[in-house]
Every structure is written in C-alpha cells, then in structure tokens.
C-alpha cells in the first residue's frame, strides 16, 4: 500500500474507481430492471432484484473502506489524501478526515444512502411484488445512482494526486480539535439522507395511485428515525461549535447550518400532520408535499453549500458538482409536481375538520408556523443571491435577521406546544380547555416568576420562560396521566414519547433564549497574581505554559476561577497549515457556564495574557434537552399499547383508552 502511494496510480484509487463504476451501473440497472419487472409482472426478473441492492450497498461500502484504508495507510497517490491526510495526524482524526472535505463527505452520503437502500430491500424483499414497495425501491435506486454518479464523475473522489507527494497538511485544524467530529457528521447524515426513504414511498404512492393510508404505515417510523438522527446531528453540531470555535455560541444561522435546519423544519411539520392523515384520512396532498419538500430541501441545501455560490465558514467550496445538484433538484420538483397533478383526483381527501379548536386544528396551525419558519430560513439564506442576480449588488443577511424573525415564531410555537397536547380530536369546548390547562398555566406563572426573580428583563426571554413552563406543564400532564393509567407503558408510544421530545425541545428553546439574551462578555488583560472580578466571579492568571505535539505547538493560560480549579484556554498553532486555532475552556454548571478564551499572549512564562470571559446561563440544559429529544424519539418509535387498525374507516371510534393519543376516551369520541 505504501509503495503504491509513491507511484502514479494508486491501488486504492483503482479499486475505489472500480467500486464506484460498478455501483453506478448496478444502481441504474437495478432501477430499470425493477421498474420493468413491475410493469410487466415478470416474477422471475423480480426475484433477481435484491442482488442489485446488495451489490450497490457492497460497492459503496467497499469504496468507503478503500478510502479509509488510503487515509490510514497514507496513500498520497490519491488527491483526497493529499488534501486532508497527514502522517502526523492522530488516527482518530485521520478517520474523521474521511468526511472533512467535499469528496469524502459525498462518499459518506453515498454509503448512508446505499446502506438505506440495501436495508429497505432486506426488509421488504418478500413483498417486492407489491408495486408500492417496488416503486419505492426504484426511487431509492435512482437516487443512489445519482450519488454514485456524483462521486464517480464530477467529484471524482478517487482522483489521482500530483505525483511525488509524500505528506499532506491533514484536515482543517478545526476538524482535528475535538472528539465530536467523529460523531456529528455521520449522525447528521443518517438523518439528512434518511428522509430519502419516506420520500421514495411518497413517490411510490403517487405512481401506484395508492395514496390512501397504506404507504404512511410503511414510512411513518422511517420519517421519525430520520428526524431523530437529524435532530441529534444538528445539536451535536451546535455542541461542537460551542466547544471548538471559541465564540461561545451554538448556532450562527450560517448557510450550512440552515441547510440542515430546513429539512428539520419541514420534517417536523410532517411528523405532526401525518397524524391527522392517519386519524382522519385528510391532508394527503399536503403530507406528500411535505415529504417531497423535505427531500428536495436536502438536495437544495447541499447545492447551496457545496457549490461555492454561498460563502460560509464551513462550506466546501467546489464548483464542479453545483450544476448537477441543481439539475437533480429541478428534476425532483418537476417530477413530483407532475405526479401530484396527475393523481390530483385521488388525492382529494374526504372528511372535514369540525373545529379549529381541536387537535387537528392545532396540527394545522403547527404546520403553517413550521412552513413559514422554513420559508423564512430559506429566504434569508438565498436572499443575497437574489439581490445579486437582480441588481448586481452584494448584501448580507446575517444572524440578527434570523434571530429577529425566529423569535416570534418560536414563542408562538411554545404556546401551541402548551395548548395542543390537551386538545382532543374533532372538537374541544372552552370548559375543557380551562380545566386541562389550569395546572400547566400555573407552572407557566411559576417559571415566569423564577425568570423575573433571577433578573430577566426582556419581554422575549420572559415570555420564553413563561410559555416554556406552560408548554412543559402540558407535556408533563399528559405523561402523568398516561403513566397513572398504564404504568411504565405510559411513557412509550408516539403521543407519550412525543411529549418527552416536547420537554426536550422546550428545554432547548428556553436555554437558547436565556443564553442568547443574558450572556455577559468581558475582555481582560490578566496579570499573574492580580485577580480580576467580573459578574460575581474572580479570575486569576496562574501561569502561561507552552505545549507541543507532533503537529502543533501552542500556549495555554492557566486561569483559576473563584480561587478554585484552573481552566486553560489555549491558542494552538498548527505548523502544517500555519493556522492559529483558539481553544476555549469551559466550566460547566447547572445554572451557567463560564467560558474562557485566550485572545492574546506573548510567550510561555509571560506574566500577562488577554482573556475573554463569557458568562452563559443555562447552556447545560440545551444538552440535557438534546438527551430528552433522543430518548423521546426512541420511546415514540415503540408501538403503543393498542393500535388502531389502519384498515378501519376513518370515522370509526378509537379503542377506549387509546395509548397512542393518551386522550381521555370519552372526549376522544365526541
């Protein structure tokens, strides 16, 4: 392997190329053969189809393994290894180097997608003669083929590098600084790419004309699965930014972040509105559109951030794949809209929603808000491009814009989270609402009082606390009622797991409001032996130390907080890239974090250093909220106690004490 790295063609490159081309051909033929077999009813051909999925999955895996091998064995014959590999990078970050630049991230995408395709095939291979399953798999094959093509052609993942190169710079120093780079991208991709599965089933439902509720049953859990991973992936990204970037924030409304947030918004809308369709058979076009929008937004987001048309700190600028992604996005939109238009007659759903004051009504309001939210984020992200195209002017749309618009939306969503869980299906009376919301409202008042007591003074953060308490009260009420009735099973199932997720989201929202609104920043030139006071804490510089690793050298300042343990923010110079990277040091606490960064220092043993201190309230609760979101998603994925027969007419009364909704049964049937 090592010798191969020095020759013009790398063995890894050869194997990788071959794997990609085989995968590409297999996926294309898989799609064609499956479509043909389904149309003609050729059962013999149908039986051979799973092999295409195994081969596609296997070649994607092989390509990834080969690239990993090339990185770990320093095969500098490959351009990608020259770009991100380095002999001095520790093994851990060498593994993470697989997704630290464009080519590798496409490979990761491909592996995830081909893996999903193979898994869906494994799960449903006995039912391939069902056209719905077959067409869904055709869609999966087509998307997989597209990404094989992107990896093989325009990106040319396994391109040969310049001859004679024996070492490289390694990944961007920011990407070899924290263990989270191991987890954030793969988990995010599991979610981001996972929305391909429900999308494929939605398209299959349109093609077969079976737009009833059958296809929903197949995909609901997949959508939830993707949503859970996307949520966790986004949060891990925020955590990484907080621990590494040194500006003490978790979210900057950067285009790349927005690209992951957009499908999250439409996906969230979907996992709520799908309940209306399941229960009442309504909103068919809407739900299919949400799934299509979610998938299309993942492609559009990738286009925006991977084509180099938008500048961002963590976009991989590369012009070659842009046109293909944009073209693919166009194809998705045109094909989907045509299919919806074609099936329009079947998509009209029966039934009415009796009253806005009902669970259906709340889900619809939720959908309007989430869609508007997604629109705002998309508009803000692409607006500079629009202005540039129309008037040839450069403008910027930044964090303050997004903050200003997302705040009211977030507050209304919190209010909705308080009211919606207590609403029964069909119709609610105000007496019922007064009765069920009283205790949650009391909790809201208590939370508001706490916020006032600790000194919150902006109306937005006060409302966030008050409404957050209100919403948490409603979620807790549901959980208490459900567990009282069913024991531990009251925590399982969609409605109850969903409430755990709600609690997590509320914690995150309140923690964001608190930390955005009440961060205190001070910058000090600290001298050894002269403590500095700031916001009720004292900081004392103990000493400035030098440290050195194989690939970097740096200085760290030992700062003791309140005379106790010392924290050591550092500046590291990565020799190969010549980049200075600041590393913050954080004292985490239940009520607030103290976040230190080293801004300026002269040399080891210096008697002074410039230190920036951020006091950030409630950050820890964001991570706890993230834990609750994942826990709740897992709980929600378990089936509830009694499930409604999907074949039952939509108007049939729900089994008494339905675990999925946790509704008091007598009201559920009103």
């Amino acid at each position, binding site marked *: 392997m090592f010798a191969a790295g020095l020759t013009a063609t790398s063995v890894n490159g050869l194997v990788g190329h071959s794997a990609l081309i085989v995968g590409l051909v297999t996926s294309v033929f898989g799609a064609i053969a499956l479509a043909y077999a389904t149309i003609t009813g050729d059962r013999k051909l149908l039986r051979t189809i799973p092999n295409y999925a195994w081969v596609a999955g296997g070649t994607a895996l092989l390509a990834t393994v080969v690239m990993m091998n090339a990185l770990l064995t320093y095969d500098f014959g490959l351009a990608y290894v020259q770009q991100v590999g380095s002999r001095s990078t520790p093994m851990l970050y060498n593994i993470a180097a697989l997704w630290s630049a464009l080519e590798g991230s496409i490979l990761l995408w491909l592996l995830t997608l081909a893996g999903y395709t193979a898994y869906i095939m494994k799960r449903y291979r006995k039912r391939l003669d069902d056209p719905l399953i077959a067409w869904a798999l055709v869609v999966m094959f087509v998307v997989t083929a597209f990404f094989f093509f992107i990896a093989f052609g325009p990106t040319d993942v396994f391109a040969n590098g310049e001859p004679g190169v024996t070492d490289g710079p390694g990944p961007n120093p920011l990407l070899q600084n924290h263990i989270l780079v191991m987890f954030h991208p793969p988990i995010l991709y599991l979610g981001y790419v996972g929305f391909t599965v429900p999308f494929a089933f939605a398209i299959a439902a349109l093609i*077969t*004309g079976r*737009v009833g509720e*059958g296809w929903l049953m197949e995909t609901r859990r997949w959508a939830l699965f993707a949503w859970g991973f996307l949520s966790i992936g986004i949060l891990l990204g925020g955590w990484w930014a907080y621990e590494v970037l040194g*500006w003490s924030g978790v979210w*900057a409304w950067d*285009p790349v972040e927005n690209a992951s947030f957009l499908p999250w918004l439409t996906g969230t809308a979907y996992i709520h509105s799908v309940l209306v369709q399941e229960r009442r058979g309504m909103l068919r076009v809407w739900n299919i559109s949400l799934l299509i929008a979610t998938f299309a937004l993942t492609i559009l987001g990738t286009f925006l951030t991977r084509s180099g048309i938008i*500048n961002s*700190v963590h976009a991989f600028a590369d012009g070659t794949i842009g046109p293909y992604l944009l073209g693919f996005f166009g194809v998705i939109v045109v094909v989907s809209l045509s299919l919806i238009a074609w099936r329009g007659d*079947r*998509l009209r*759903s*029966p*039934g*009415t*929603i*009796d009253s*806005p004051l009902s669970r259906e009504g709340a889900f*619809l*309001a939720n959908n*309007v808000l989430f869609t*508007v939210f997604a*629109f705002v984020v998309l*508009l*803000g992200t692409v*607006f*500079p491009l629009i*202005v540039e195209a*129309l*008037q040839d*002017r*450069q*403008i*910027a*749309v*930044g*964090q*303050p*814009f997004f903050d*200003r*618009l997302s705040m009211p939306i977030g507050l209304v969503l919190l209010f909705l989270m308080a009211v919606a869980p207590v609403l029964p299906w069909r119709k609610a009376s105000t007496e019922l609402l*007064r009765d069920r919301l*009283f205790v949650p*409202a009391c909790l*809201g*008042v208590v939370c*508001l*009082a706490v*916020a*006032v007591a600790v000194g*919150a*003074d*902006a*109306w937005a953060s*006060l*409302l966030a606390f*008050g409404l957050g308490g209100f919403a948490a009260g409603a979620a807790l009420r549901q959980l208490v009622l459900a567990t009282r009735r069913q024991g531990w099973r009251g925590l399982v199932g969609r409605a109850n797991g969903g409430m755990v997720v709600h609690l997590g989201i509320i914690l995150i929202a309140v923690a964001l409001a608190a930390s955005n609104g009440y961060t205190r920043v001070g910058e000090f030139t600290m001298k050894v032996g002269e403590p500095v006071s700031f916001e009720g804490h004292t900081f004392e510089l103990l000493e400035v130390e030098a440290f050195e690793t194989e690939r970097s050298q740096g200085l760290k300042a030992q700062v003791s907080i309140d005379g106790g343990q010392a924290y050591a923010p550092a500046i590291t110079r990565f020799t190969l890239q010549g980049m200075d990277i*600041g590393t913050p040091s954080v004292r985490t606490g239940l009520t607030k974090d103290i976040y230190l960064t080293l*801004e300026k220092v002269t040399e080891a043993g210096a008697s002074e250093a410039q230190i920036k201190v951020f006091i950030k309230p409630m950050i820890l609760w964001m991570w706890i909220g993230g834990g609750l979101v994942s826990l709740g998603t897992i709980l929600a994925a378990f089936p509830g106690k009694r499930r409604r027969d*999907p074949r039952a007419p939509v108007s049939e009364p729900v089994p008494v004490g339905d675990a999925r909704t946790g509704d008091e049964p007598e009201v559920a049937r009103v």
Partner: protein
Amino acid sequence: MTAAEVRPPADPRAARRAGWRRLKQGPGWIVVVLLFGVLLVFGIAQGRDARTPEERVEELSKQIACPICDGESVFDSRNPTSAAIRNELLAQVENGQSSDAQILAYIEERFGEDVLLVPRAEGIDALVWILPVMALAGGVTGLAIAFRRWQREGGLEATDADRALVDAARARETGFDDEAEGARG
C-alpha cells in the same frame, strides 16, 4: 364505579374536588392571567434602561459582518480587522455623538453595504422583511378559509355514488384495498 360505591356528597374529598373544579373554571384563571401579566410587566420594568458602552458595542458589532472572513460577525470574529472595527465602534460610542444608526451608516460607508448583516427595509431589500409577513398572513388566511369551508360543508354525507363505489370495492376484494380507498376521495 358502580352506584353503590358512589360516596355521599358530604364526603370532604368530593367537596374539595368540586371546589377545585370550580376554581379551574373561573376564578383560578383570572388569578393566573393577572399574575402572568403583572410578572411580565414587572420583569420588563426592572430592566436597566441605560446600556453600557460595552453592551452597545456588542450589539452593534453583532450587526456587522467581518469584512475579510466568510459569514462571521465582527463580534464573533477574532482577526485584527474585526478588532480594529470593534475599537472604532467603542471610540464612536464613547464619543457619545452618534446614534446606532449613524454609526452603522458610517461603517457601511467605509466597508461597503455587504458588511451590514441586517438588511434595510428599503428598495428591494425590504422584500426580505415583507415576504415572511406575507407568507404568514397567507398561511393564516388559507387556514381560515379552509375552516370556513369545512364548517359550511359540515359532516360529509356519503352519496349513493360513493356507496356504490365502496360496495364494488368490497365485492372485488375483501382485504385492504388502497384502490378503493383512493377512489373514495
């Protein structure tokens, strides 16, 4: 609960429960809403009016993009150019002559309009503020219209044609049939 188990109304627990129920239907809510409002107003009133120069600089620097980096604000960025702008802002703020808008206009004049992170509400840039409001208004109106229509239609009655369709479908297949379900729509 059978009739024999029903407790006499004199039971203090039942009376307490009834009282609790009455509280939740009226007086309790008045107290809750009042408390919420009072706390909110009190909380806002306790806010300090005067911002310190540092807070003003922080607020301003969050609205200015670092001219030489990708997508970071002057507040977040750590490079010398941003530090220079922060010093400039501090000087202007401590000078006390200019309003926030004037300071931002001055910065814009020096570095170009693409350093302002908050688009202005004039010209075509205003669209970025108007369109979200229009989208929300559109969504809410659409929802209101849909509810009006649903209310007018009332409960959907099956027509004879619908019944015929269902019967035909049932005859064709006894199991779950999406075709028939689709046709019902």
